[in-house]
């Protein structure tokens, strides 16, 4: 009987691994003909990571850039998803599929594509590739990186200015350098306003733990804890888990507390699926993935592809904060002043937590 138990435990683990390989679907979602094909229509291939659009955040921002290109430049588009448990091999397949299909540019949305793209790009020297949030060293790849720490610095300034308690919070998704840069900028910005401010940070999962982006109930508990400890502004860079922060802050606000949430990537104040939480979303750190995606497509359409490292920072308006909620106007003076200092080089923002 113990043999059976052992077998069961081994296979339980194996089934996890199998689930990881088996589920990565190549779900082609949409293929829309261009409204008015100009010259020879440019075909844009876009590969999302995880489950793609509908996260109200990062992927939706990429899609916004794509649809802008579709309307403004009349390009043809094709979108694919890697699925939540994709491997590098399946990501390679997706990119190869798009490149073989004559899509040019091929845009990989998310750092998870780095390894796959590095393998595929050299095989298609005539195709322009782009990757968001990562650097791939190849002559035909545009690496679209964002100075998230600069944008987060501004939200940190806003948070510290808005906070009455002197305690603010940060919810991170997966604990990786990419997200730590958000935390670092946020902390630095907050300390520039109030050197004694207390910042509570919490990550939803360790590096490699893909569930970190999908556990809103854990983000909610973490935010509850921060608010209970006096935090009155909380900023989340946690993908789908961010919803939990909004829920927690909303519950606290409904209970009569003055608390704010700060969104990330997209302007979450205007995201329809978050309409319920609008009132408590003070601002969002904008990572203009839409601008970057549009620029890449425009580059190919104009015959001047963007390759190499493209750093979208404050001066290129690649990052920033949103002013959709009028409540932020009270604090935007401080944020704009900080932005000027960063642009002029008076302040340089680090990417690691000090």
């Amino acid at each position, binding site marked *: 009987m113990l043999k059976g138990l052992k077998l069961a435990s081994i296979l339980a683990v194996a089934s996890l691994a199998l689930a990881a390989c088996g*589920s990565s679907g190549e779900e082609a979602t949409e293929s829309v003909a261009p409204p008015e094909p100009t010259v020879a229509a440019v075909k844009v291939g876009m590969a999302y990571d995880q489950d793609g659009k509908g996260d109200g955040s990062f992927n939706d921002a990429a899609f916004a850039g794509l649809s802008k290109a579709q309307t403004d430049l009349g390009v043809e588009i094709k979108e694919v998803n890697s699925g939540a448990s994709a491997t590098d091999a399946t990501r390679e397949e997706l990119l190869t599929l798009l490149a073989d299909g004559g899509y040019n540019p091929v845009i990989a949305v998310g750092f998870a594509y780095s390894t796959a793209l590095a393998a595929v790009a050299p095989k298609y020297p005539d195709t322009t590739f782009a990757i968001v949030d990562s650097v791939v060293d190849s002559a035909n790849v545009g690496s679209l990186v964002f100075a998230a720490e600069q944008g987060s610095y501004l939200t940190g300034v806003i948070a510290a200015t808005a906070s009455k308690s002197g305690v603010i919070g940060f919810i991170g998704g997966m604990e990786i350098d990419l997200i730590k840069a958000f935390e670092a900028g946020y902390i630095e910005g907050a300390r520039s306003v109030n050197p004694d401010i207390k910042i509570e940070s919490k990550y939803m999962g360790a590096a490699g733990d893909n569930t970190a982006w999908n556990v809103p109930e854990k983000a909610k508990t973490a935010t509850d804890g921060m608010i209970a400890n006096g935090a009155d502004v909380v900023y989340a860079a946690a993908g789908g888990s961010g919803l939990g922060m909004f*829920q927690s802050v909303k519950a606290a606000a409904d209970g009569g507390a003055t608390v704010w949430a700060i969104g990330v990537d997209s302007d979450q104040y205007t995201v329809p699926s978050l309409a319920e939480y609008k009132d408590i979303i003070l601002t969002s750190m904008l990572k203009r993935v839409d601008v970057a995606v549009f620029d890449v497509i425009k580059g190919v359409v104009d015959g001047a592809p963007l390759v190499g490292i493209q750093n979208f920072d404050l001066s290129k308006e690649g990052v920033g904060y949103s002013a959709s909620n009028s409540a932020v106007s009270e604090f935007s003076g401080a944020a704009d002043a900080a932005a000027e200092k960063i642009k002029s080089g008076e302040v340089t923002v680090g990417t690691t937590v000090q």
Partner: protein
Amino acid sequence: MTYLKSRRFIGAAFTAITMLSITRTITSNGDLTSTVTIAQALVFASPIALAGLAGIWAERAGVINIGLEGMMILGTFGAGWAGWQWGVWAGVLAGVIFGAIGGLLLAVAAVTFGVDQIIAGTAINLLALGLTKFLAIVLFTDAPGGGQAQSPPIKGDIPTFTIDSIVEPLTSLHETGIFFISDLAGILAGLFYNLSLLTIITFLLFAMTSYLLWKTAFGLRLRSAGENPWAADSLGVKVVQFKYAAVVFSGMLAGLGGAYLSIASTIYRNGNTAGRGFIGLATMIFGDWRPGGTAAGALMFGYIDTLRLIDTGNQNVKGLILLGAIILFAIGGLMLRKAKRNSAIGFLLLGSVMIGAYFSATSFPPEVAQVAPYITTLLVLATASQNLRPPAADGIPYRKGDNH
């Protein structure tokens, strides 16, 4: 027997609270036994506990249910979809029904066709994952507030209860910081603070399982199908029917666990089970295929998860390290009394290492807390595996009339 059992339960509870109290006093970290911590731990523990309970039902009838995760995924999806359409209770119902369909599938494959149960369960995990993803794209993509990977918000709330007349005095008693008394007060208050009706249902299902499976003729027959189905058959027990009933009910429980998760985060989201079906399976083994131990295992996972998430400045992780050390010393002491010298030395050494870590390190990575329940389960499996007793015919395909 009952007297002995309740004495054992009270003894275990007393020991647990004492250990928590010692840790709380040394670290002076009130969060360890605060009302909010305990209430939240119940919320995190319940879905895991339901998955564990689901495992008990299937495996007591002799069917290994690796498909728990898949059935749970079906439950999260059912709850997200029906909850969005018709409200939260429809969501609960749909979660249970979707889970039952997963259970039925396993029963057909494993009981009727005698397919290897591990393979059948794995297939259900894969199927559920793919199917729900596909359906999410079809049903939620264009729905307002939804997306390719998540459902629109579930309508309505499950009622929760806070009994102020109990919670308030006990919480203020907790804040006094008296050894043992204030910890007991915090824990008791946590049981009556923001208590969800679904948590109460979970508790009742555990009580019902204990009674049905161990105190009734129905339970004896069901368990006989997992211990020795051939003997049971010779006595006229309809083994196949019992296995079917148990596995389908197992699916319903796992589905309810999934529904609990979706409702707790107000939406269905791809992957929001985050492996809790497998964790449920681990708690079942931890609990020796019995409801009480399984519930304790689930509470441990829920408690540690909560402490990690509501942590301020890593104090809770530090507290957990100390708690772990105290537990290891206690087990080590027990082993010494039982004259198991080698195991005792192992536990005492490990405990000393943890004490050393507690006093020398200023901060701990929060990952330490994340892996703690898994390490505990491994420790339990490693040290208690001689005493753990799965049903004798667990995982063995049964064919009526076979000789054994």
